[in-house]
Protein backbone atom coordinates (compact mmCIF):
# COMPACT_ATOMS: atom_id res chain seq x y z
CA UNK A 1 0.00 0.00 0.00
CA UNK A 2 1.14 3.58 -0.61
CA UNK A 3 0.88 6.34 1.96
CA UNK A 4 0.88 10.11 1.61
CA UNK A 5 3.66 11.08 4.01
CA UNK A 6 3.91 14.82 3.39
CA UNK A 7 2.02 17.63 1.66
CA UNK A 8 2.87 21.18 0.71
CA UNK A 9 0.80 23.97 -0.89
CA UNK A 10 1.23 27.28 -2.59
CA UNK A 11 -1.50 29.82 -2.03
CA UNK A 12 -4.08 29.47 -4.82
CA UNK A 13 -5.26 32.53 -6.71
CA UNK A 14 -3.95 35.02 -9.23
CA UNK A 15 -0.19 34.65 -8.89
CA UNK A 16 2.64 36.68 -10.38
CA UNK A 17 4.97 33.66 -10.62
CA UNK A 18 5.19 31.41 -13.67
CA UNK A 19 4.02 27.82 -13.79
CA UNK A 20 7.45 26.26 -13.16
CA UNK A 21 8.11 28.54 -10.19
CA UNK A 22 4.74 27.69 -8.65
CA UNK A 23 5.40 23.96 -9.07
CA UNK A 24 8.83 24.34 -7.42
CA UNK A 25 7.46 26.52 -4.62
CA UNK A 26 5.08 23.73 -3.63
CA UNK A 27 7.68 20.96 -4.00
CA UNK A 28 10.62 22.70 -2.27
CA UNK A 29 9.69 21.96 1.37
CA UNK A 30 9.44 18.24 0.52
CA UNK A 31 12.60 18.17 -1.63
CA UNK A 32 14.45 20.01 1.14
CA UNK A 33 13.77 17.14 3.52
CA UNK A 34 13.77 14.12 1.22
CA UNK A 35 15.75 14.91 -1.98
CA UNK A 36 17.87 11.76 -1.73
CA UNK A 37 14.87 9.49 -1.25
CA UNK A 38 12.72 10.62 -4.18
CA UNK A 39 12.99 8.11 -7.04
CA UNK A 40 10.06 9.17 -9.26
CA UNK A 41 8.20 12.39 -10.05
CA UNK A 42 4.64 12.47 -11.31
CA UNK A 43 3.41 15.86 -12.52
CA UNK A 44 -0.31 16.49 -12.81
CA UNK A 45 -0.91 19.27 -15.32
CA UNK A 46 -3.33 19.68 -18.17
CA UNK A 47 -2.91 22.99 -19.97
CA UNK A 48 0.77 24.03 -19.91
CA UNK A 49 0.74 24.11 -23.73
CA UNK A 50 -2.41 26.19 -24.03
CA UNK A 51 -1.75 28.67 -21.20
CA UNK A 52 2.00 28.75 -20.68
CA UNK A 53 3.70 27.75 -23.95
CA UNK A 54 5.41 24.88 -22.14
CA UNK A 55 5.66 21.19 -23.03
CA UNK A 56 7.52 18.38 -21.29
CA UNK A 57 6.90 20.17 -18.03
CA UNK A 58 7.87 17.20 -15.83
CA UNK A 59 11.51 17.32 -16.92
CA UNK A 60 11.68 21.11 -16.69
CA UNK A 61 10.49 20.93 -13.09
CA UNK A 62 12.77 18.06 -12.08
CA UNK A 63 15.82 19.99 -13.33
CA UNK A 64 14.81 23.18 -11.49
CA UNK A 65 14.59 21.06 -8.32
CA UNK A 66 18.06 19.59 -9.10
CA UNK A 67 16.48 16.18 -9.37
CA UNK A 68 17.68 16.11 -13.00
CA UNK A 69 18.10 12.34 -13.25
CA UNK A 70 15.01 11.30 -11.32
CA UNK A 71 12.54 9.73 -13.79
CA UNK A 72 9.38 11.74 -14.29
CA UNK A 73 6.14 11.83 -16.26
CA UNK A 74 3.31 14.27 -16.82
CA UNK A 75 -0.25 13.04 -16.37
CA UNK A 76 -2.94 14.96 -18.27
CA UNK A 77 -6.60 14.11 -17.86
CA UNK A 78 -8.18 17.61 -17.83
CA UNK A 79 -9.83 18.40 -14.48
CA UNK A 80 -9.30 14.81 -13.42
CA UNK A 81 -5.51 14.94 -13.90
CA UNK A 82 -4.89 14.92 -10.15
CA UNK A 83 -6.86 11.74 -9.50
CA UNK A 84 -5.18 10.04 -12.44
CA UNK A 85 -1.72 11.15 -11.26
CA UNK A 86 -2.41 9.73 -7.79
CA UNK A 87 -3.52 6.47 -9.35
CA UNK A 88 -0.27 6.34 -11.36
CA UNK A 89 1.88 7.11 -8.31
CA UNK A 90 0.03 4.52 -6.22
CA UNK A 91 0.49 1.91 -8.98
CA UNK A 92 4.22 2.68 -9.29
CA UNK A 93 4.68 2.12 -5.57
CA UNK A 94 2.46 -0.96 -5.29
CA UNK A 95 4.14 -2.61 -8.29
CA UNK A 96 7.57 -1.94 -6.83
CA UNK A 97 8.60 0.17 -9.85
CA UNK A 98 9.24 3.14 -7.57
CA UNK A 99 9.54 3.67 -3.85
CA UNK A 100 9.18 7.32 -2.97
CA UNK A 101 7.19 9.37 -5.43
CA UNK A 102 7.00 13.16 -5.50
CA UNK A 103 3.60 14.09 -6.91
CA UNK A 104 3.25 17.68 -8.10
CA UNK A 105 -0.02 19.18 -9.28
CA UNK A 106 0.35 22.58 -10.93
CA UNK A 107 -1.52 24.91 -13.27
CA UNK A 108 -1.31 28.57 -14.21
CA UNK A 109 -4.47 29.83 -15.90
CA UNK A 110 -4.85 33.54 -15.17
CA UNK A 111 -3.66 36.18 -17.58
CA UNK A 112 -5.98 35.40 -20.48
CA UNK A 113 -9.41 36.96 -20.94
CA UNK A 114 -12.24 34.78 -19.59
CA UNK A 115 -13.55 34.24 -23.11
CA UNK A 116 -10.21 32.70 -24.14
CA UNK A 117 -10.08 30.54 -21.01
CA UNK A 118 -13.62 29.34 -21.62
CA UNK A 119 -12.53 28.33 -25.12
CA UNK A 120 -9.47 26.47 -23.86
CA UNK A 121 -11.49 24.46 -21.35
CA UNK A 122 -14.29 23.77 -23.87
CA UNK A 123 -11.72 22.08 -26.12
CA UNK A 124 -12.34 18.87 -24.12
CA UNK A 125 -15.83 18.61 -25.66
CA UNK A 126 -16.62 16.60 -28.77
CA UNK A 127 -16.58 18.95 -31.81
CA UNK A 128 -20.22 18.19 -32.70
CA UNK A 129 -21.27 19.44 -29.25
CA UNK A 130 -18.67 22.14 -28.80
CA UNK A 131 -19.71 23.87 -32.02
CA UNK A 132 -23.17 24.56 -30.55
CA UNK A 133 -21.38 27.11 -28.32
CA UNK A 134 -21.33 24.95 -25.19
CA UNK A 135 -18.98 25.82 -22.35
CA UNK A 136 -18.33 23.82 -19.18
CA UNK A 137 -20.25 26.40 -17.09
CA UNK A 138 -23.26 26.04 -19.42
CA UNK A 139 -23.31 22.28 -18.81
CA UNK A 140 -23.57 23.01 -15.08
CA UNK A 141 -26.63 25.10 -15.84
CA UNK A 142 -28.28 22.29 -17.83
CA UNK A 143 -27.53 19.97 -14.93
CA UNK A 144 -28.97 22.39 -12.34
CA UNK A 145 -32.16 22.85 -14.35
CA UNK A 146 -32.63 19.11 -14.74
CA UNK A 147 -31.95 18.47 -11.05
CA UNK A 148 -34.31 21.17 -9.81
CA UNK A 149 -37.20 19.95 -11.95
CA UNK A 150 -36.60 16.22 -11.52
CA UNK A 151 -36.37 16.30 -7.72
CA UNK A 152 -38.48 19.39 -6.95
CA UNK A 153 -35.55 20.87 -5.09
CA UNK A 154 -35.57 24.54 -4.04
CA UNK A 155 -33.07 26.74 -5.88
CA UNK A 156 -31.53 27.82 -2.55
CA UNK A 157 -30.33 24.27 -1.84
CA UNK A 158 -27.81 24.55 -4.66
CA UNK A 159 -26.70 28.03 -3.57
CA UNK A 160 -26.13 26.71 -0.02
CA UNK A 161 -23.17 24.71 -1.35
CA UNK A 162 -21.42 27.97 -2.27
CA UNK A 163 -22.18 29.42 1.18
CA UNK A 164 -20.72 26.36 2.92
CA UNK A 165 -17.66 26.12 0.69
CA UNK A 166 -16.84 29.82 1.02
CA UNK A 167 -17.07 29.43 4.79
CA UNK A 168 -14.65 26.49 4.65
CA UNK A 169 -12.37 28.44 2.32
CA UNK A 170 -12.31 31.30 4.84
CA UNK A 171 -10.62 28.83 7.23
CA UNK A 172 -8.04 27.66 4.67
CA UNK A 173 -4.83 29.73 4.43
CA UNK A 174 -4.17 28.38 0.89
CA UNK A 175 -7.62 29.17 -0.52
CA UNK A 176 -8.11 31.72 -3.30
CA UNK A 177 -11.19 33.18 -1.59
CA UNK A 178 -10.94 33.57 2.15
CA UNK A 179 -14.14 35.43 2.87
CA UNK A 180 -17.62 34.16 3.63
CA UNK A 181 -20.66 34.84 1.47
CA UNK A 182 -24.30 34.78 2.58
CA UNK A 183 -27.15 33.04 0.79
CA UNK A 184 -28.36 36.50 -0.31
CA UNK A 185 -24.89 37.34 -1.69
CA UNK A 186 -24.93 34.16 -3.77
CA UNK A 187 -28.49 34.56 -5.00
CA UNK A 188 -27.86 38.21 -5.94
CA UNK A 189 -24.52 37.63 -7.64
CA UNK A 190 -24.10 37.86 -11.41
CA UNK A 191 -25.71 35.14 -13.55
CA UNK A 192 -23.12 33.20 -15.56
CA UNK A 193 -25.29 30.50 -17.15
CA UNK A 194 -28.89 30.73 -16.06
CA UNK A 195 -29.76 29.79 -13.28
CA UNK A 196 -26.21 29.50 -11.86
CA UNK A 197 -24.40 32.55 -10.55
CA UNK A 198 -20.78 33.57 -10.29
CA UNK A 199 -20.34 32.59 -6.60
CA UNK A 200 -21.44 29.10 -7.54
CA UNK A 201 -18.59 28.55 -10.00
CA UNK A 202 -14.94 27.92 -9.27
CA UNK A 203 -12.70 30.84 -10.25
CA UNK A 204 -9.84 30.76 -12.78
CA UNK A 205 -6.77 30.00 -10.69
CA UNK A 206 -3.03 29.57 -10.46
CA UNK A 207 -1.52 27.25 -7.90
CA UNK A 208 0.41 24.12 -7.06
CA UNK A 209 0.43 21.34 -4.49
CA UNK A 210 2.99 18.62 -3.83
CA UNK A 211 2.79 15.30 -2.02
CA UNK A 212 5.31 12.68 -1.03
CA UNK A 213 4.00 9.15 -1.44
CA UNK A 214 5.90 6.22 0.08
CA UNK A 215 5.36 2.50 0.71
CA UNK A 216 3.48 1.92 3.96
CA UNK A 217 6.30 -0.15 5.45
CA UNK A 218 8.78 2.74 5.21
CA UNK A 219 6.47 5.46 6.57
CA UNK A 220 8.40 5.41 9.88
CA UNK A 221 11.55 6.72 8.12
CA UNK A 222 9.63 9.74 6.85
CA UNK A 223 7.00 11.69 8.79
CA UNK A 224 5.75 8.67 10.75
CA UNK A 225 2.13 9.55 10.09
CA UNK A 226 0.13 9.82 6.92
CA UNK A 227 -2.90 9.01 4.83
CA UNK A 228 -2.78 5.50 3.46
CA UNK A 229 -4.43 4.96 0.08
CA UNK A 230 -6.51 1.86 0.82
CA UNK A 231 -8.66 1.84 -2.30
CA UNK A 232 -8.77 3.50 -5.72
CA UNK A 233 -11.51 3.30 -8.32
CA UNK A 234 -11.35 4.61 -11.86
CA UNK A 235 -14.21 4.75 -14.32
CA UNK A 236 -14.90 6.35 -17.70
CA UNK A 237 -18.23 7.35 -19.22
CA UNK A 238 -19.08 8.46 -22.73
CA UNK A 239 -17.61 11.84 -23.63
CA UNK A 240 -20.65 12.49 -25.82
CA UNK A 241 -23.14 14.42 -23.69
CA UNK A 242 -25.92 13.68 -26.16
CA UNK A 243 -25.27 9.98 -25.62
CA UNK A 244 -25.87 10.10 -21.86
CA UNK A 245 -29.15 8.82 -20.46
CA UNK A 246 -29.38 11.32 -17.62
CA UNK A 247 -28.03 14.73 -16.72
CA UNK A 248 -28.67 14.23 -13.01
CA UNK A 249 -26.38 11.28 -12.45
CA UNK A 250 -22.70 10.77 -13.29
CA UNK A 251 -22.09 7.11 -14.10
CA UNK A 252 -18.33 7.39 -13.78
CA UNK A 253 -18.65 8.83 -10.27
CA UNK A 254 -20.99 6.05 -9.22
CA UNK A 255 -18.75 3.27 -10.54
CA UNK A 256 -15.43 4.75 -9.41
CA UNK A 257 -16.77 5.30 -5.90
CA UNK A 258 -18.18 1.79 -5.66
CA UNK A 259 -14.86 0.27 -6.74
CA UNK A 260 -12.75 2.41 -4.41
CA UNK A 261 -14.91 1.57 -1.38
CA UNK A 262 -14.93 -2.13 -2.23
CA UNK A 263 -11.14 -2.21 -2.61
CA UNK A 264 -10.75 -0.22 0.59
CA UNK A 265 -13.01 -2.65 2.42
CA UNK A 266 -15.14 0.07 3.98
CA UNK A 267 -18.66 1.42 3.55
CA UNK A 268 -19.46 4.99 2.59
CA UNK A 269 -20.88 5.59 6.09
CA UNK A 270 -17.41 4.90 7.53
CA UNK A 271 -16.02 7.98 5.74
CA UNK A 272 -15.37 10.94 8.07
CA UNK A 273 -14.46 13.60 5.50
CA UNK A 274 -14.78 13.94 1.71
CA UNK A 275 -13.51 16.18 -1.07
CA UNK A 276 -15.70 16.29 -4.18
CA UNK A 277 -15.27 17.98 -7.56
CA UNK A 278 -17.46 21.09 -7.14
CA UNK A 279 -16.52 22.94 -10.33
CA UNK A 280 -20.01 24.33 -9.85
CA UNK A 281 -22.31 24.07 -6.82
CA UNK A 282 -24.81 21.59 -8.26
CA UNK A 283 -22.05 19.10 -9.08
CA UNK A 284 -21.28 18.64 -5.38
CA UNK A 285 -24.89 17.66 -4.69
CA UNK A 286 -25.07 15.22 -7.59
CA UNK A 287 -21.69 13.67 -6.76
CA UNK A 288 -22.62 13.34 -3.08
CA UNK A 289 -25.52 11.16 -4.24
CA UNK A 290 -23.58 9.20 -6.86
CA UNK A 291 -20.75 8.49 -4.41
CA UNK A 292 -23.41 7.04 -2.09
CA UNK A 293 -23.43 9.53 0.77
CA UNK A 294 -27.12 10.24 0.05
CA UNK A 295 -29.87 8.60 -1.98
CA UNK A 296 -30.46 9.98 -5.49
CA UNK A 297 -32.60 13.10 -5.21
CA UNK A 298 -31.84 13.56 -1.48
CA UNK A 299 -28.50 15.36 -1.67
CA UNK A 300 -30.17 18.77 -1.77
CA UNK A 301 -31.88 18.08 1.57
CA UNK A 302 -28.50 17.30 3.16
CA UNK A 303 -27.17 20.60 1.76
CA UNK A 304 -30.17 22.48 3.19
CA UNK A 305 -29.87 20.76 6.60
CA UNK A 306 -26.15 21.48 6.96
CA UNK A 307 -25.29 17.77 7.02
CA UNK A 308 -22.23 18.39 4.83
CA UNK A 309 -20.69 21.27 6.79
CA UNK A 310 -17.81 20.87 9.25
CA UNK A 311 -19.42 19.35 12.34
CA UNK A 312 -22.21 17.79 10.26
CA UNK A 313 -22.90 14.12 9.51
CA UNK A 314 -20.39 14.02 6.62
CA UNK A 315 -18.30 17.15 6.07
CA UNK A 316 -17.75 17.69 2.33
CA UNK A 317 -15.14 20.00 0.82
CA UNK A 318 -13.67 21.14 4.13
CA UNK A 319 -10.87 22.75 2.06
CA UNK A 320 -13.38 25.15 0.50
CA UNK A 321 -13.60 22.93 -2.55
CA UNK A 322 -12.82 24.07 -6.07
CA UNK A 323 -15.53 26.66 -5.46
CA UNK A 324 -13.63 28.70 -2.88
CA UNK A 325 -10.13 27.23 -2.71
CA UNK A 326 -9.79 27.71 -6.49
CA UNK A 327 -9.34 25.30 -9.39
CA UNK A 328 -5.86 25.36 -10.92
CA UNK A 329 -6.86 22.36 -12.98
CA UNK A 330 -3.86 20.03 -12.67
CA UNK A 331 -3.45 20.89 -8.99
CA UNK A 332 -7.04 20.30 -7.90
CA UNK A 333 -7.05 16.51 -7.53
CA UNK A 334 -3.72 16.64 -5.68
CA UNK A 335 -5.07 19.39 -3.41
CA UNK A 336 -8.01 17.14 -2.54
CA UNK A 337 -5.61 14.41 -1.41
CA UNK A 338 -3.55 16.98 0.50
CA UNK A 339 -6.66 18.16 2.37
CA UNK A 340 -7.55 14.57 3.29
CA UNK A 341 -3.93 14.05 4.42
CA UNK A 342 -4.21 17.07 6.71
CA UNK A 343 -7.59 15.93 8.05
CA UNK A 344 -6.40 12.37 8.76
CA UNK A 345 -3.17 13.50 10.40
CA UNK A 346 -4.94 16.07 12.58
CA UNK A 347 -3.21 19.03 10.94
CA UNK A 348 -6.19 20.74 9.27
CA UNK A 349 -6.23 23.65 11.74
CA UNK A 350 -9.55 25.45 11.99
CA UNK A 351 -11.07 23.07 9.45
CA UNK A 352 -10.25 19.96 11.45
CA UNK A 353 -12.98 17.31 11.50
CA UNK A 354 -12.97 15.59 14.89
CA UNK A 355 -11.76 11.99 14.98
CA UNK A 356 -11.34 11.81 11.20
CA UNK A 357 -10.12 8.31 10.34
CA UNK A 358 -11.28 7.47 6.81
CA UNK A 359 -11.26 10.00 3.96
CA UNK A 360 -12.67 10.03 0.44
CA UNK A 361 -11.81 12.09 -2.64
CA UNK A 362 -13.38 12.32 -6.06
CA UNK A 363 -11.45 13.81 -8.95
CA UNK A 364 -13.44 14.21 -12.16
CA UNK A 365 -12.39 14.82 -15.76
CA UNK A 366 -14.35 16.72 -18.36
CA UNK A 367 -17.98 17.00 -17.38
CA UNK A 368 -18.15 13.45 -16.06
CA UNK A 369 -15.95 11.89 -18.75
CA UNK A 370 -14.05 9.96 -16.12
CA UNK A 371 -13.55 9.90 -12.37
CA UNK A 372 -11.00 8.67 -9.87
CA UNK A 373 -12.29 7.92 -6.38
CA UNK A 374 -9.80 7.32 -3.58
CA UNK A 375 -10.38 5.99 -0.08
CA UNK A 376 -7.79 6.89 2.58
CA UNK A 377 -7.09 5.74 6.13
CA UNK A 378 -5.14 7.73 8.68
CA UNK A 379 -2.05 5.77 9.79
CA UNK A 380 0.70 6.39 12.31
Amino acid sequence: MSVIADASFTRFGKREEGLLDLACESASPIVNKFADDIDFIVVSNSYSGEYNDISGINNLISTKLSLDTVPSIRVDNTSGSGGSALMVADSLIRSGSASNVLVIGAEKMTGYPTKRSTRIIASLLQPEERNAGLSLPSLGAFMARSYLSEFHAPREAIAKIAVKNHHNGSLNPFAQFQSEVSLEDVMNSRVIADPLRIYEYCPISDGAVSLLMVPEESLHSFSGKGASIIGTGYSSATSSLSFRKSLTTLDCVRKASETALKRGGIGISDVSVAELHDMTSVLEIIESEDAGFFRKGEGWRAAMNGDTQIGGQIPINTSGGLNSKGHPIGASGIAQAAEIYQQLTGTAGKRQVEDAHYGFSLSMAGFGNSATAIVYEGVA
Partner: protein
Amino acid sequence: MKISRCRNCDAKFLVGRVFCPSCKSDAIEMIDLLEGKVIEIVSLVATPEPFPDNYSIAMIDANGIVLFARTDESLKKGDSVGITEDEFGPICNKI
Protein backbone atom coordinates in the same frame (compact mmCIF):
# COMPACT_ATOMS: atom_id res chain seq x y z
CA MET B 1 -27.51 19.67 -39.81
CA LYS B 2 -25.97 16.23 -40.29
CA ILE B 3 -25.85 13.33 -37.86
CA SER B 4 -24.57 9.76 -38.17
CA ARG B 5 -26.69 6.71 -38.97
CA CYS B 6 -25.64 3.05 -38.92
CA ARG B 7 -26.65 1.30 -42.13
CA ASN B 8 -26.60 -2.06 -40.38
CA CYS B 9 -28.86 -1.43 -37.34
CA ASP B 10 -30.30 2.07 -38.01
CA ALA B 11 -28.80 3.53 -34.78
CA LYS B 12 -28.51 7.32 -35.01
CA PHE B 13 -26.01 9.41 -33.07
CA LEU B 14 -24.64 12.94 -32.99
CA VAL B 15 -20.92 12.50 -32.38
CA GLY B 16 -19.16 10.92 -35.34
CA ARG B 17 -17.72 7.46 -34.71
CA VAL B 18 -15.75 4.90 -36.66
CA PHE B 19 -17.87 2.03 -35.33
CA CYS B 20 -21.57 1.97 -34.46
CA PRO B 21 -22.01 2.16 -30.65
CA SER B 22 -24.82 -0.43 -30.84
CA CYS B 23 -23.67 -3.12 -33.29
CA LYS B 24 -20.00 -2.15 -33.92
CA SER B 25 -20.56 -2.03 -37.70
CA ASP B 26 -18.38 0.44 -39.59
CA ALA B 27 -21.08 1.14 -42.17
CA ILE B 28 -21.84 4.65 -40.97
CA GLU B 29 -23.50 7.28 -43.15
CA MET B 30 -24.44 10.93 -42.62
CA ILE B 31 -28.10 11.92 -42.72
CA ASP B 32 -29.96 15.24 -42.43
CA LEU B 33 -31.62 16.25 -39.21
CA LEU B 34 -33.97 19.17 -39.67
CA GLU B 35 -36.16 19.62 -36.58
CA GLY B 36 -36.84 18.67 -32.97
CA LYS B 37 -38.36 19.77 -29.67
CA VAL B 38 -36.65 21.86 -26.98
CA ILE B 39 -35.99 19.79 -23.81
CA GLU B 40 -34.11 22.47 -21.90
CA ILE B 41 -32.78 25.94 -22.59
CA VAL B 42 -29.91 27.83 -20.95
CA SER B 43 -28.95 31.45 -21.60
CA LEU B 44 -25.23 32.21 -21.39
CA VAL B 45 -23.51 35.41 -20.39
CA ALA B 46 -19.92 34.13 -20.40
CA THR B 47 -19.35 32.47 -23.76
CA PRO B 48 -16.25 30.90 -25.32
CA GLU B 49 -14.26 32.31 -28.24
CA PRO B 50 -15.02 32.48 -31.18
CA PHE B 51 -18.75 32.61 -30.42
CA PRO B 52 -20.83 35.79 -29.94
CA ASP B 53 -21.01 37.33 -26.43
CA ASN B 54 -24.64 36.41 -25.73
CA TYR B 55 -26.86 33.55 -26.84
CA SER B 56 -28.92 30.70 -25.52
CA ILE B 57 -28.29 27.01 -26.06
CA ALA B 58 -31.21 24.65 -26.57
CA MET B 59 -30.99 20.99 -25.73
CA ILE B 60 -33.13 19.38 -28.37
CA ASP B 61 -34.79 15.99 -28.71
CA ALA B 62 -34.95 15.03 -32.37
CA ASN B 63 -36.77 11.69 -32.46
CA GLY B 64 -34.71 10.31 -29.60
CA ILE B 65 -31.41 11.92 -30.61
CA VAL B 66 -30.31 14.60 -28.15
CA LEU B 67 -28.34 17.50 -29.55
CA PHE B 68 -27.45 21.10 -28.78
CA ALA B 69 -27.95 24.24 -30.87
CA ARG B 70 -27.48 27.97 -30.35
CA THR B 71 -30.40 30.36 -30.62
CA ASP B 72 -31.03 34.09 -30.30
CA GLU B 73 -34.76 33.54 -29.77
CA SER B 74 -36.41 33.19 -26.36
CA LEU B 75 -37.46 29.57 -26.64
CA LYS B 76 -39.30 27.50 -24.05
CA LYS B 77 -39.33 23.80 -23.19
CA GLY B 78 -41.60 21.96 -25.61
CA ASP B 79 -41.15 24.44 -28.51
CA SER B 80 -40.71 22.83 -31.92
CA VAL B 81 -37.58 24.11 -33.66
CA GLY B 82 -35.96 23.88 -37.04
CA ILE B 83 -32.20 23.22 -37.00
CA THR B 84 -29.74 24.68 -39.50
CA GLU B 85 -26.07 25.61 -39.34
CA ASP B 86 -24.25 28.93 -39.44
CA GLU B 87 -20.51 29.67 -39.54
CA PHE B 88 -20.05 28.34 -35.95
CA GLY B 89 -22.32 25.31 -35.87
CA PRO B 90 -25.92 24.27 -35.30
CA ILE B 91 -28.47 27.01 -34.70
CA CYS B 92 -32.22 26.64 -34.12
CA ASN B 93 -35.37 28.71 -34.67
CA LYS B 94 -38.95 28.25 -33.55
CA ILE B 95 -41.25 26.76 -36.20
